[in-house]
């Protein structure tokens, strides 16, 4: 990058120091572990689920069809995806208004994969202090072995992640066979490495920096906050003035608050902030500091909750409100949109028709005094069963339709082109007119679709 330097505070861009979050156990960390297992489980298992002879969830890009269990989506159904993204965004707003950055702490892929990489790091390199000792130690056989083992685990896990990701787009069992035989296509290989590499770099190295520098949600989430939003907060009224003290001393008489200044809350923080300085946008609401502080409070015999989930109103001793205009509006919109999506998906038209004029001839005048136009009628069957269709035409008096009928079979998820001739008596025509072509399934009359087409005739 060749951006000229602007005068900035020299310390502002100092090199990043690696953060070694101290491992911590507690209520919220167990909850996060469960969330990580469930979410990663869903991600890694779903491509392996079979469904009626194919993969249950397969975004078949080469065939331009998305299979989601019993549902098959076509490019024409694209608006469902848009709709789904709107619902996801609104759900994010709703949960943010309610309980702050729940998404960041429990569900964000960045957090979940970082956490998994931290587990592997701890498994190989040991606790926080052991890791820091290893980092400072000169290179030795053991250091190479440990660092190598960690890299091996990370890389293997990243590659598996990339493989799983591509398995959503290419049938995963075939892909596994191709990889075993080193015969994957160029794009499959590329995307496995691309996604695997992104996982490795994001979860292994960038970690909390992604949240701090790259995440737009971190910057705008405060817009959804109000004084009734649950946040992770340090109770300064109770804690300050902080300070170390000896056991059994009457700290209140010495003018000290409940915070013993053990800095555990800082050591466990994966983004390296001090929650006692107040709410900061770097905080990803992982609640590690709550668990750490509760443990310390238990040890020194003070009540828990010096750092806790609370609202600003709660801290001020005012009543807490969950139901308030903001949450009610978000919830109502969310429900309406979700219900609308469910209704539209279950009631969507699973057949479609596309009428293309034959390019070779505008029209043909027949010896019997009628004019003939030729069309290619494309019948689209998005249903999961085969259907038998009839084709009818209307819009002009005396219109006759002729195709290799009387019915056309179209398989599940297939498009069938049918050459159709339409004839109209010449004296009924002046130049041209619009006609309507309709298809209808014989066994289920509600499956029908129609399209307009131009019928062209001589002008004289």
């Amino acid at each position, binding site marked *: 990058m060749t951006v000229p330097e602007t005068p900035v505070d020299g310390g502002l861009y100092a090199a990043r120091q690696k953060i070694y979050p101290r491992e911590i156990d507690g209520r919220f960390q167990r909850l996060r572990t469960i969330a990580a297992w469930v979410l990663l489980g869903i991600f890694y298992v779903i491509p392996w689920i079979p469904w009626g002879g194919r993969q249950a969830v397969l975004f078949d890009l080469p065939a331009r069809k998305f299979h989601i269990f019993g549902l098959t989506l076509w490019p024409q159904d694209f608006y469902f995806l848009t709709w789904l993204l709107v619902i996801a965004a609104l759900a994010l707003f709703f949960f943010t208004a309610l309980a702050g950055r729940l998404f960041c702490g429990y569900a964000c892929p960045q957090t979940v994969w970082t956490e998994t990489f931290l587990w592997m790091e701890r498994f190989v390199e040991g606790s926080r202090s052991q890791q820091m000792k290893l980092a400072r130690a000169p290179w030795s056989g053991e250091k190479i072995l440990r660092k190598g083992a960690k890299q091996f685990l990370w890389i293997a896990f990243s590659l598996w992640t990339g493989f799983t990701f591509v398995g959503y787009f290419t049938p995963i069992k075939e892909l596994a066979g191709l990889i075993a035989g080193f015969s994957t296509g160029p794009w499959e290989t590329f995307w496995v490495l691309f996604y695997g590499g992104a996982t490795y770099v994001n979860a292994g190295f960038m970690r909390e*920096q992604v949240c701090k520098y*790259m995440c737009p949600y971190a910057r705008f989430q405060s817009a959804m906050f109000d004084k009734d939003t649950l946040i992770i907060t340090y109770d300064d009224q109770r804690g300050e003035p902080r300070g170390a003290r000896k056991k059994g001393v009457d700290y209140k008489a010495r003018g000290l608050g409940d915070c013993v200044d053990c800095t555990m809350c800082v050591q466990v923080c994966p983004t390296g902030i001090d929650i006692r300085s107040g709410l900061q946008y770097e905080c990803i609401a992982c609640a590690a500091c709550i668990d750490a502080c509760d443990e310390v409070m238990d040890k020194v015999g003070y009540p828990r909750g010096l750092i806790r989930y609370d609202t600003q109103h709660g801290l001020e001793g005012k009543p807490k409100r969950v139901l308030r205009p903001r949450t009610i509006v978000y919830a109502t919109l969310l429900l309406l949109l979700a219900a609308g999506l469910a209704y539209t998906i279950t009631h969507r038209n699973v057949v479609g028709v596309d009428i293309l004029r034959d390019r070779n001839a505008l029209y043909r005048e027949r010896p019997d005094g009628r004019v003939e136009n030729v069309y290619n009628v494309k019948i689209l069957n998005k249903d999961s069963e085969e259907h038998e269709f009839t084709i009818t035409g209307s819009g002009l008096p005396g219109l006759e339709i002729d195709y290799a009928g009387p019915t056309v079979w179209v398989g599940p998820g297939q498009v069938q082109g049918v050459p159709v001739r339409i004839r109209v008596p010449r004296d009924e025509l002046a130049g041209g007119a619009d006609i309507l072509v309709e298809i209808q399934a014989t066994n289920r009359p509600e499956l029908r679709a129609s399209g307009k087409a131009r019928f062209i005739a001589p002008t004289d």
Partner: protein
Amino acid sequence: MFGRHPDEYSGKLRWPRLGQDVAIVAWPSFLVASVATMVCFAFIDPLLVGNDDYPPPAFSTRMTGYAVGFFFFWLVSALSSLLTLYLVRTAHPEPPATDENAEGGVRSTE
């Protein structure tokens, strides 16, 4: 027991400037390119890109078309991010707030 840890957070947890710049350019444009690719190819079949009647088509397979489309969008949006970053980084710093401009007197057209 509760002394400060020697490796406690030192307040210098920042990326170097170049790292920030690369991230600020590459990441938002990646997000935008992903969305643009989805929207674009929901409406356009890569096999039909190019001349209808005269072979060969622009892309030999759909996967190639999707990939080329994605990287094209990424490149274009990254260029836009890069220009934005350049303009932001090279702007003069905001003038310090004085009584005069704090009241908007400088910009007033009346």
